[in-house]
């Protein structure tokens, strides 16, 4: 009983209003709105209340969804109205898909422009004849593990997100359904591997990614973009560290929310699932944008950047220019190796020189 019966006119007005609402709620956008209103007007002053409309209206307008009892088992079967569903629909259709598309597009365009303006960042001193060991086999394995899993998840995820507007026109509904089904199964299956890879990455790289003194300078000078001068940095620079922590935190968010989404069996409510989806989507788009930048630098953006991840060794001049604090220390510790020694350790040597000849520089 929400209406106080003391005020007659108010109560009357409300009763008419109630009828109107009844009409709206009763049959969504149905043509009998007019008829209903008319019938209400034909009987002025009579308190004709529609119990069903009252019920639905209460369910809708109360803050918490009214739930009752039902014989039917399952998640939230007693809930009459899923209040968050519509908000989630709006987010997905009006915000996530268009904005997400723009963000990814914008990143690519920005990088293109940046590349056209700045070009490939060269090793200024040119490639030297010595190298520094940068990543162990295990470190590179972990990196490429998370990279391959991430790429797979990103591609399948983007297909599921943008497939309806972008791929259905190409493949038709049936064709896209095949793609989407495959993507969904693959995405769900590979998802947990991302978490595994994330744990491996975290433990392998966390020590070198703790922020240090020089990192603020790096940030202030835009990582060397401003003023075109290299900024001193350690094994990882401020940007890489930030990416690492983004990966750790946002990646965990994506991973855990993803687990929520793939375990409907846990009986979590729709509100929580929708929230998980929101977190999953925003986090994933953010990470995809960041990783596009990461891939840009690794491939076309900078000379010598990918070498370390590919071969395990990086050029000495590259190290001096981009990670000078680390490079100086490493050189002091005598880690620098001739290109031949590196080639030998990487099994690239094919000459008939005595096998023992190159072992001097072999580090552990």
């Amino acid at each position, binding site marked *: 009983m929400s209406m106080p019966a003391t005020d007659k006119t108010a109560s009357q007005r409300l009763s008419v209003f109630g009828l109107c609402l009844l009409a709206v709620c009763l049959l969504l956008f149905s043509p009998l709105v007019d008829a209903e209103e008319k019938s209400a007007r034909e009987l002025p002053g009579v308190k004709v209340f529609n119990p069903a409309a009252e019920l639905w209206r209460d369910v809708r307008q109360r803050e918490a969804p009214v739930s009752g009892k039902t014989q039917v088992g399952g998640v939230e079967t007693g809930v009459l109205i899923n209040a968050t569903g519509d908000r989630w629909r709006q987010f997905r259709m009006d915000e996530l898909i268009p904005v997400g598309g723009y963000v990814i597009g914008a990143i690519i365009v920005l990088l293109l422009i940046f590349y056209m303006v700045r070009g490939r960042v060269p090793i200024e001193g040119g490639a030297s004849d010595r190298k520094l060991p940068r990543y162990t086999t295990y470190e590179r394995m972990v990196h490429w593990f998370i990279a391959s899993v991430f790429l797979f998840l990103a591609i399948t995820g983007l297909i599921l997100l943008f497939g309806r507007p972008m791929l259905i026109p190409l493949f038709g509904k049936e064709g896209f359904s095949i793609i989407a089904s495959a993507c969904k199964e693959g995405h769900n299956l590979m998802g947990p591997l991302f978490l595994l890879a994330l744990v491996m990455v975290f433990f392998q790289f966390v020590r070198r990614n703790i922020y240090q003194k020089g990192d603020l300078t790096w940030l202030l000078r835009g990582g060397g973009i401003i003023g075109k001068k290299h900024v001193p940095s350690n094994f990882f620079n401020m940007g890489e560290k930030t990416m690492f922590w983004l990966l750790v935190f946002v990646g965990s968010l994506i991973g855990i929310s993803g687990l929520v989404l793939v375990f409907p069996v846990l009986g979590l409510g729709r509100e929580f699932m929708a929230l998980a989806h929101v977190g999953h989507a925003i986090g994933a788009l953010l990470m995809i944008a960041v990783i596009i930048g990461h891939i840009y630098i690794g491939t076309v953006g900078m000379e010598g950047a990918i070498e370390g991840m590919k071969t395990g060794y990086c050029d000495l001049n590259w190290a001096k220019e981009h990670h000078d604090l680390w490079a100086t220390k490493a050189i002091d510790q005598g880690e620098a190796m001739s290109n031949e020694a590196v080639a030998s350790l990487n*099994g690239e040597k094919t000459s008939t020189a*005595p096998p*023992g000849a*190159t072992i001097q520089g072999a580090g552990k």
Partner: protein
Amino acid sequence: MSEQFEQGVAVLRDQIDARISSYLSSCVHCGICAEACLFYTETNDPRYTPIHKVEPLKKLWQVENTFWGKLGKSLGLIKPLTESDFADWEQLVYDSCTLCGRCSMVCPVGNDITYMIRKIREGFSVAGYAPDGMKEATKRALTIGSPMGVTFKTVQAALAHVEKDTGLKIPIDQQNAEYMTLFSSMEIVNFPEYIESIAKIFDAAGVSWTISSQAFEATNSGIQIGNKEAAAELVGRVVKAAESLGVKYVVSPECGHAYTAIRWEGPNLIGRPYDFEVVHILELLDKLKAEGRIKLEGKDDTPMTLHDPCQIVRRGGVVDPPRNLLHSVADHFTEMTDHGVMNWCCGGGGGVSANERAEELRIKSFDRKKHQLEELGVNTMVTACANCRIILEEGLEHHEMDTEVISLTELLAEHLVSGKTPN
């Protein structure tokens, strides 16, 4: 040269039996054997991966026995085995493998990689791709009778010394003795104490033994270089001598490769079983001790460890006797982390010690043993192989370590309860 190469390839082809076919079919290139090989672990050079060393054999097998190989060859996509393959692999096959067999123990599909390297050497040696040091050693063994050029005259001189020192008569060419004892040149030249010890122990135990003037040398360079004919010739001499003397047993000396050669490969090389049995000196000593024929007294309280010679333990199967014997004379005997059939090689087996070219690599690979010793912190290492002993001493000297290497047989002789001898 080219004809010789063809012969080498033909010999190599002959080596491919069911075992090798099975091994090459099974290898999934996992690389786990690399971590078992001291030449890899000490240099990190991937070419020292054991299975990589048999690449020429694999290539031959692939081209001639597999579908893709045959197809690739007929299409000209795969080049057949060439002489440059032999040239490129010669050092890998000879310098960086001691035939220690450790890789064969870890292979997940159970490949006996050592067996394959042993077999690939057959082809290489025929084709003429073998280190000069080993070639010469084999030549000396065939012509003079010992890889180190030791003649029976030298032996006699050494024996005379021993007789003088011990006051014992050393039986030579004694018909129908029970045991015929062999030595390695290394022992005759560098460690005559070994002969002395044997004489004392055999005397104390009352063993009827003899040394043959026709065949005193136990080592077999033919096997190390991979020359079947030479190996058969060398084994044949021993067999002939033993059978003409009518001995029941031939005693293999401490030397490891000698043991595998005479005990396991010998009958197959000459193509018939022996009329006698081959025992390793440690087996014999263990047996004598168990029978109570030799008595030992006193125990050393210096901490000791045992270096297992690969060919005696891992490839020879004499695993427990050295331990039983050492325990009976040492109070503080501790094992190294990897011991027994998983021991690390000294670095000089399989003919590597006869190969001057490999010296640098061999010294480098000694780091493994050094590390093992440092980890254990024991300064006395007992072993039962003259070759190991020399190599270990060289390595220790190189690193200026004050670790003592002693022979197990000699150690036992020191603790012998001397019944008859006044010494």
